[in-house]
């Protein structure tokens, strides 16, 4: 869409908008004199960190913020010159949903759980035009759902939201937003809650929606990649203000404001480009962790022999001392189950796990306890992984207590040392977890994992709940700890850029299996498996125009049912290039050169030298 922005007047304009949140400790300014404007057919990207005031601005403009605690102090929100903020509420109601369509962040909660999806879309039509009959609204609903790419729209319209996947639900919300051909379409972090391949699908749908309606679009996101891919112009938010507005091309080429420059400098490098700093730090020697044909099934009924979810279905890998292996996959692929099974939080169904040569698969009692000291795990959500009723100093010392080393190791001093090691001052040791920021909490969780001087750290999505700058800091800390302490990492993430940044090797997981493994560089620059390629191509690159050069692979559909995985290749149902053999024969991992394996029938002999 770049470069097609017409030079007409803005159809929707926010002028001098100022919003306070009134709390017990006085008013706090969330939005401070914001000016925005968007023209017909144009896409305005709104970017900034969480808490910068992006969502508050548009919600306040549509008067969708609960007042109190919010209070609009000043400003105008003009639609075709009429101020929404002073409009009588009856009139505003007819503007919402007819002239302005909205798409929200979390598709799992933005649909009413008790009404059929079709009825909710139809309501968007009938609420603005009572003359439309129920059957006409139903027919129009089916058309809309078809437009946004919902298969079998007539049948699926009769289902309830909990029967729909997140990506499908977001399509339904988009269908509602464009039901009345709005002049303005506002999408508030529409893909943040979604997997990267689903994100690619939904962004495509948004493009279609905009093309069909010609609406002026406001797209709010924290992801510069999404901005680069979608926006004609960009407004950068920082601390409740717009610090810079520019065309996307200009902004990425020559940012004027220092905050924008900082934001751009922090973006991860283009994922497909060869890494300049990658050094294989893994020293040769016997592996510290060996996992062999690991399987974990969850029975779905009460009987152990009934149908089971094949969460982990035959995984093999080794981890050298000091090495970092990244495990990438989308939600539902079984990566968290794998992490929990490897550290023996879940009982393996079959297979073998060895730590420093010792078989720990069926260990129990004191042996298992000794293993737990050397094989540690850090969880995704630092607010959930710390006991809310324990001060953080005690939380770090708790593993020492459990292992009876609190007295001998002088637990209190050791806890302070560890906190210091992860960059948390001793002054914070008496705080409760809820008094800390997300990044600080994750540092505490890491300190806790280090308390027993482990050999291997399993990191389950360690930064996915953190904002970009904090995320970078925590990743730096992890990198530093690894080289200082000689730790081996098994890092699990849905985000390829994270894995690329921290890991020597990468394994790509799909529906309980590895489909491709290899050196991080090799997998990211020369992906072999169609799924890896789709995954890589779906990652938005924070570089306008980069998309056009590389082309894109958008996967169709959703994950197959994990209780009944396909008999042939698991990826066959979503693969654009499948051949007859894929449906019947399950491909195994085969070598594609030194330290690069791929499980795909289409990938024949090794391709040989790297470019």
């Amino acid at each position: 869409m770049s470069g097609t922005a017409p030079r007409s007047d803005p159809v929707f304009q926010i002028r001098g908008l100022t919003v306070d949140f009134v709390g017990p400790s006085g008013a706090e300014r969330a939005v401070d004199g914001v000016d925005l404007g968007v023209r017909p057919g144009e896409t305005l990207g709104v970017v900034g960190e969480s808490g910068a005031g992006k969502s508050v601005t548009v919600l306040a403009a549509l008067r969708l913020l609960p007042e109190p605690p919010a209070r609009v102090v000043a400003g105008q929100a003009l639609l075709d010159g009429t101020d929404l903020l002073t409009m009588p509420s009856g009139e505003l109601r007819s503007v919402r949903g007819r002239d302005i369509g909205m798409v929200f962040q979390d598709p799992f909660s933005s649909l009413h759980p008790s009404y059929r999806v079709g009825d909710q879309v139809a309501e968007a039509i009938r609420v603005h035009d009572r003359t439309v009959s129920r059957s006409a609204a139903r027919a129009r609903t089916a058309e809309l759902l078809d437009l946004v790419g919902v298969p079998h729209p007539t049948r699926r319209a009769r289902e309830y939201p909990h029967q729909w996947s997140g990506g499908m639900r977001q399509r339904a919300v988009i269908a509602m937003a464009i039901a009345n051909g709005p002049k303005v379409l506002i999408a508030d972090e529409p893909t943040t809650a979604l997997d990267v391949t689903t994100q690619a699908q939904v962004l495509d749908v948004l493009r279609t929606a905009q093309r069909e309606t010609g609406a002026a679009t406001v797209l709010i996101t924290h992801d510069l990649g999404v901005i680069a891919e979608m926006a004609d112009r960009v407004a950068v938010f920082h601390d409740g203000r717009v610090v810079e507005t520019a065309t996307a091309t200009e902004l990425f080429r020559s940012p004027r404001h220092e905050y924008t420059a900082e934001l751009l400098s922090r973006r991860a490098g283009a994922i497909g480009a060869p890494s300049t700093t990658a050094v294989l730090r893994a020293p040769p020697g016997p592996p510290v962790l060996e996992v062999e044909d690991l399987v974990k099934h969850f029975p779905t009924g009460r009987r152990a022999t009934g149908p089971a979810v094949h969460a982990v279905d035959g995984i093999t890998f080794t981890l050298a001392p000091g090495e970092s292996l990244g495990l990438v996959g989308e939600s539902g692929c079984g990566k968290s189950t794998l992490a929990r099974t490897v550290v023996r939080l879940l009982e393996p169904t079959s297979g073998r796990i060895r730590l420093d040569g010792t078989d720990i698969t069926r260990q129990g009692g004191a042996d298992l306890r000794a293993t737990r000291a050397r094989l540690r795990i850090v969880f995704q959500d630092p607010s959930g992984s710390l006991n809310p009723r324990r001060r953080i100093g005690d939380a770090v010392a708790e593993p020492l207590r459990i292992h009876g080393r609190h007295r001998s190791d002088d637990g209190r001093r050791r806890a302070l040392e560890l906190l210091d090691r992860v960059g948390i001052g001793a002054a914070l040791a008496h705080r409760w977890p809820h008094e800390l920021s997300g990044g600080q909490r994750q540092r505490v969780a890491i300190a806790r994992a280090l308390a027993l001087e482990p050999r291997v750290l399993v990191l389950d999505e360690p930064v996915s709940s953190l904002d970009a700058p904090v995320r970078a800091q925590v990743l730096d800390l992890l990198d530093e700890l690894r080289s200082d302490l000689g730790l081996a990492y098994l890092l699990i993430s849905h985000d390829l850029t994270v894995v690329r940044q921290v890991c020597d090797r990468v394994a790509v997981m799909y529906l309980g299996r590895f489909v491709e493994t290899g050196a991080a560089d090799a997998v990211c620059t020369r992906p072999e498996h169609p799924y890896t390629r789709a995954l890589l191509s779906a990652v938005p690159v924070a570089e306008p125009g980069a998309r056009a050069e590389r082309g894109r692979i958008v996967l169709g559909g959703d994950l197959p049912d994990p209780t009944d995985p396909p008999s042939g290749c698991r990826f066959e149902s979503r693969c654009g290039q499948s051949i007859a053999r894929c449906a019947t024969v399950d491909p195994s991992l085969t070598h594609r050169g030194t330290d690069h394996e791929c499980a795909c029938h289409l990938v024949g002999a090794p391709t040989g030298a790297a470019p």
Partner: protein
Amino acid sequence: MTRRYVLIRLAQVPLTCAGIVLVGFLLVHLAPGDPVLALAGDSGDAEYYARVRADFGLDEPFLVQLATYAGNLVGGDLGTSYTQGRPALDVIAERLPATLLLTSTALVLSTVVGIGLGVAAASRAHGARDLALGAASLGLYAAPVFLVGQLAILGLALGLGWFPVQGMTTARSGATGLAGFGDVVHHLALPALVLASQEIAAITRLTRTGLLEELGRDHIRTARAKGVSERAVLIRHALRRALLPVTTVIGGRVGHLVAGTIVVEAVFGWPGIGRLLVSSVQARDMPIILGVFLLIALAVVVANLLTDLTYAWLDPRIRYR
């Protein structure tokens, strides 16, 4: 799944009933002294005691006694009231309509008024109306029903003279037909309102809390963004799910409501099973007391069953699981 859920839920009912019968039976046998005295009081004659022994199979071994007792109950035989010398079931049945009238009126009243006030409070949360309703329901919820009754009598019956103080009908008026019906309604109004007061308070609070919670949800924002009016948001989008916890409470509080009925009957001289129960305790007329206990326990079990089925019907996630 739905059918399965309903069947399991139905299968639990006889088990629960059997448990309740067992509790009553065990209590009789745990009581100090000869069970025949516990069951028939200490002022009967030898012939009457013999009949009670036979009725309850008291000379038989424990399990046979239990079987006899349970068999009698299934056949609708609650034993013989020794104060009146008639089947206990007949004595209770005579008084039941008055109590049912009072309880069911209060149940309907509290549901309708409670939900209405809850919606009124939530629609302008933190406004003056909301605060007044909040304070009133907090106070009413904490007040014993007899105090509410006494204050109502002092204010509305004795003070303003709007309602009669006692009874279900005007003595010696002999009014029949429509006039008689009007007379009963006039007598019913105050006790029913008093009985409903605590439930109204509970349901108002619950509806308000549920509505506010629902109104804060993302799908409500979606509805507003679609252009749905505030009224429709409140009634069509928020109320339905806000009523789920209310449903549970209405079923769960039936036992509580019947207990309140007993007290209200004492305050207003209402001729239901309440006064029968109190006089039976004073006279230790056990067949009546046990009979009332079993009937009310049965009512509570049925109310809970209906609640669970309604809940499953209201929440598609249970239905379609």
